[in-house]
């Protein structure tokens, strides 16, 4: 029977792990924005990207033992909310007129 306690002591979760998670989330978000055509899903992907920013900021902040990073995180959260608010409001406006949230349908502004 392995000693869970000692295993846990040996397995350190360090900065790299947080950054790896952050990069993964960022990549997933980026791919989501590029490949999904549903505006709502695209907005969610953007939120993922912002979350990854927050994770890396918090990790750095903790690692550097510096509070500025946490401050930026709070602002990023607020900004993300504001952006989503405006974005969704505009989307509602469009949905009322077109009954769709598929970006490929929005092509009136083309050459």
């Amino acid at each position, binding site marked *: 029977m392995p000693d869970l306690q000692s295993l846990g002591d040996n397995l350190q979760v360090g900065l790299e792990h947080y950054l790896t998670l952050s990069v993964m989330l960022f990549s997933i*978000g980026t791919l989501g924005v590029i490949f999904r055509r549903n505006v709502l899903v695209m907005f969610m992907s953007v939120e993922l*990207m912002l979350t990854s920013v927050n994770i*890396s900021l918090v990790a*750095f902040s903790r690692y550097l033992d510096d509070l500025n990073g946490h401050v*930026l995180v709070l602002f990023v959260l607020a*900004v993300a909310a504001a*952006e989503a608010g*405006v*974005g969704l409001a505009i989307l509602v406006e469009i949905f009322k007129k077109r009954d769709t949230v598929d970006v490929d349908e929005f092509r009136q*502004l083309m050459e």
Partner: protein
Amino acid sequence: MNFTWSDAAYFGPEAVMGLTFLLCVLGDLVTRGRRHVVPFGTLLVGTAISLVLALLHPPVSSHAILGQMVVVDGFAHFFRLLFLGITFVTALLSWSSREIMGRDREHQGEFYALAAMLCFGMMVMAESADIVMLALSLEAVSITSYILAGFARFSFRSSEAALKYVLWGAVSSAVMLYGLSLFYGLTGATSYEGIRAGLSGGQGGMALLVAILFVMAGIGYKISAVPFHFWTPDVYEGAPAPVAAIFASGPKIAGFALMIRFFYVALVQDDSQGTLALLDDVQWPWVLAIISAATMTLGNMAAIRQNSVRRLLAYSSIAHVGYMLMGFVVLSANGLAAVLFYLFVYAIMTIGAFLVVVALNNRVSGEEIDDYAGLGFREPLVAAMMFLFLISLTGLPPTAGFIGKFYLFAAAGEAGLWWLAILGVLNSVVSLYYYMRIARAMYFTPPELSGRVGLAQAHLILLVVLAVPTLVLGVFWSPLKEFADQSLRMLLGGG
């Protein structure tokens, strides 16, 4: 992070604009959105007061306030005056525009509140000295812009433009924030000065390259540089024309201001001889030089194919970003002075050209180049001024645009970037072709209708107000050049 009341004296113009925003909202509320003149007047008065404050107290030295997050110096002063001027002119321009103020429109008053907020955000963008403030001011401008782009709520085009803008804007700001978080992680600092101090020691390596590229992507989106430019024509076309005029000038210029301060404070150092050098091995000027080349070339090539005046101007505004980046990449005070000079001139001529579009939109239904046929004979004054703006955009003497381009090419030449300068002048020749398509329609094609078009008096006055400096600065431009030089002295000398 201490706030002292003496900071307020330095932050006066910004504080006034912030207050103006609140008063505009309040005024609109109190009058229940029926008397638009209240927010409009508030904005004009607020901008004027702010302008007077800024002119009365030009900064004599670089002064960091609000917990070192904002720096008020000559550079900030230059852009303050520019943004306040842009806000004042675009407010007047919007007041007589049917697209904003027409009978069938709603919430006209809010437009002016948003304009105040935008001006506030842009001013802070030029002053921010910390990535927290950078992110906040940039978002303040962006979110306001998204709302302005979708201001014509009933119009599907406007909403579609706004959606594209907000979606890609959110993506680009997420990318930039990620880059900023890397800067923070690499240096442990959030202030530009701190980042420079952190970087000057060692090698940033791959992480620094990624960080710089990501920040470039975010700023590139704001200033619409290739390959982050794709939203520009759609948004300029879909948004109401006065909003397009604002976008083509204000936020783009603010993006440049932010970029100059960030890159030149955080990533460049003065050596003892007063020449600028890179901090690290990351050759970002080369990346930007290539972006510059791509931006001017693609912008011009795409503009040739446009039939809509507004889309044409949108692509031309992209091309101009390419020219301006030319002055940015040479790492010299002369190059930056050329950029500042050009930004000032660019604001005047671009707003002028868009103003003609706005003024005609009130009367003429279409925005195709062909709809301008015979304008030279129906409205000689307007056409003459449009022509003046067009040759200024092309960069022909005796207009301010020529002097601006001349300084940019000179800066590139001085730095030995001849390939970029040659590309730049060839692009100018290409741009002549599509600008002259508008001139051709105005003068060489007989009008379909005769008689005056009948434009708003306010628009005519504004046109003259913009045309005069376009011409005068083409003949005598010393004061502006010296102002630009002086504005940079504190930014580059202080570091």
